[in-house]
């Protein structure tokens, strides 16, 4: 939807590659053409690089925009596009690989003088135990091919380490096709703060501010906001500079996000990973900067370079986004596929709703449960949060379970209202009685 919308504004024709389950969706109706690339199961449709590229060529498309799911960070798609002169709206295949391998990304960060969480690669259990003593417990065993909060195991005592390594490696092999793992210090009180960057692929990189995504449940983001509240100017500037330095060293092309963990106790920050794609929460950055990030991605991909200079980027006010998912908070947030019977999205000054869901929309069981993003933009944080709460209160959705009521609880929580909390916030909230 988001990409189709900007393309329509720019007068660019769109062809949507959809699975059979999505042929009746709102984006399918809005695209100039929809092509069915396979059945509902992602492995047979959305993850088939050859089918996607074949569809693009057969419809005489000039470029492919991979969005932010499925193939968006698969070097194979970027590479196949490169080999048949199709523009891939994103970074180069080499850049996707450089940051997709989490160990390699850490090396790139260190080379760019960006601090990383104390940690190291491990191959043998004995080496791991030695490394773990140096890092200290608690620590995390992470999958090299993972990311996005997946493939992590927490270890609280050294005795737990060998078993955790074995389990993590087995799971990583199955989930990511790469059984390699590495260790990282577990930061007890950390804030997830990420920086949006745009690069021209020739060494120029600008940043568009940071986003605070500390409202997470099991490493899945729920609420995101910009600017990050309660950050010192020094810290904010250091994060921006580190992100730009990291991306610049790679001559990064397109839109990307550098994620950091800000250690509240030590007042320091560490590089976590880089996402070589546009992200779900990009609207909050668009709200405060007035920049259409999809349009900038397309401009960079079409060879126009970076149209914006750092001095063009100005942050106005505060923006907060809520993700509305088809899930059942009463049942451990289990996904709730089905059919939306009726839906009313808020229509309000300063509120933006990004959604593909309307009355009658089917939510297939095969894909992500995200239904909508509701974004509030206001002159300051208090007013943005109040505006968002009003918008959620005006939202009605029937037919499937949603986290709407839970999000209202999140925004009403005193810890949220105060701002500047760490990633343990939602877990603490869930422990409180209703």
């Amino acid at each position: 939807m988001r990409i189709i919308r900007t393309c329509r504004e720019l007068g660019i024709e769109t062809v949507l590659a959809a699975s059979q389950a999505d042929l009746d969706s709102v984006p399918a109706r809005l695209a100039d053409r929809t092509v069915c690339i396979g059945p509902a199961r992602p492995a047979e449709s959305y993850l088939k690089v050859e089918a996607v590229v074949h569809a693009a060529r057969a419809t005489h498309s000039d470029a492919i925009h991979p969005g932010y799911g499925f193939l968006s960070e698969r070097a194979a798609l970027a590479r196949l596009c490169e080999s048949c002169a199709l523009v891939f709206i994103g970074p180069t295949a080499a850049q996707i690989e450089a940051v997709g391998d989490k160990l390699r990304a850490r090396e790139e960060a260190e080379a760019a003088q960006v601090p990383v969480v104390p940690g190291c690669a491990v191959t043998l259990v004995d080496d791991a135990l030695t490394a773990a003593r140096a890092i200290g417990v608690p620590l995390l065993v992470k999958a090299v091919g993972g990311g996005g909060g997946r493939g992590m195991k927490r270890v609280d005592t050294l005795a737990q380490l060998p078993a955790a390594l074995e389990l993590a490696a087995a799971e990583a092999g199955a989930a990511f096709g790469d059984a390699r793992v590495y260790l990282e210090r577990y930061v007890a009180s950390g804030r997830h703060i990420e920086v949006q960057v745009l690069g021209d692929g020739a060494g120029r990189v600008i940043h568009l501010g940071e986003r605070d995504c500390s409202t997470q449940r099991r490493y899945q983001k729920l609420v995101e906001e910009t600017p990050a509240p309660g950050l010192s100017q020094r810290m904010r500037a250091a994060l921006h500079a580190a992100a730009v330095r990291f991306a610049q060293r790679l001559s990064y092309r397109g839109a990307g996000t550098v994620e950091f963990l800000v250690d509240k106790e030590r007042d320091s920050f560490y590089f976590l990973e880089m996402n070589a794609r546009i992200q779900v929460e990009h609207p909050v950055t668009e709200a405060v900067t007035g920049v259409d990030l999809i349009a900038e991605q397309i401009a960079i991909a079409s060879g126009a370079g970076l149209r914006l200079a750092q001095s063009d980027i100005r942050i106005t006010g505060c923006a907060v986004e809520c993700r509305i998912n088809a899930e059942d908070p009463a049942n451990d947030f289990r996904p709730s596929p089905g059919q939306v019977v009726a839906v009313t999205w808020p229509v309000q000054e300063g509120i933006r709703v990004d959604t593909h869901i309307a009355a009658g929309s089917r939510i297939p069981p095969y894909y992500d449960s995200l239904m909508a993003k509701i974004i509030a933009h206001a002159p300051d944080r208090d007013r943005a949060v109040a505006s968002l709460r009003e918008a959620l209160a005006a939202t009605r959705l029937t037919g499937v379970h949603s986290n709407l009521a839970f999000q209202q609880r999140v925004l009403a929580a005193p810890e949220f209202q105060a701002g500047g909390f760490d990633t343990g916030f939602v877990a603490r909230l869930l422990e409180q009685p209703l």
Partner: protein
Amino acid sequence: MTLTAADVAEIMRLVEQSGFDELNLEIDGTKISLRRGAPTGATGAAGPAPSPAPLAASSAAVASATAPAAQVVADPTAVDIPSPLLGTFYRSPKPGAPPFVQVGSQVEADTIIGIIEVMKLMNTVRAGVRGTVAEFLAADSALVEYGEVLMRVRKPG
């Protein structure tokens, strides 16, 4: 864009329901001429049945720039054979060779009816049912989508 047989059927339906008597359409090398009333043998095209005859009872040949690609015959006893893949459909084992099957061919479940090419990888497509080919809809060298009806087969008995 390439017009499929379904597109043509839809165009015919729209014209028939409209107040127009004649439509001449050219898209990407495909020409269609539709004229209300008795067909006059215009090159490679036929008009809809004179109204008020229902469209289902008429038959029309679809012309394309290359070769007749589809026979649109409504037959409620025929089963749809959907495409198992998205790709480029080839009716013959190689260019210039006769097609694997055509209308009237007898097929078994494992009879090859075409090839679908996906990024240079060739995939054989089999009939999947036993019977007689009643209609062949997939055009040679055209993009077929997953689930698109390739042909219809009249089952025996």
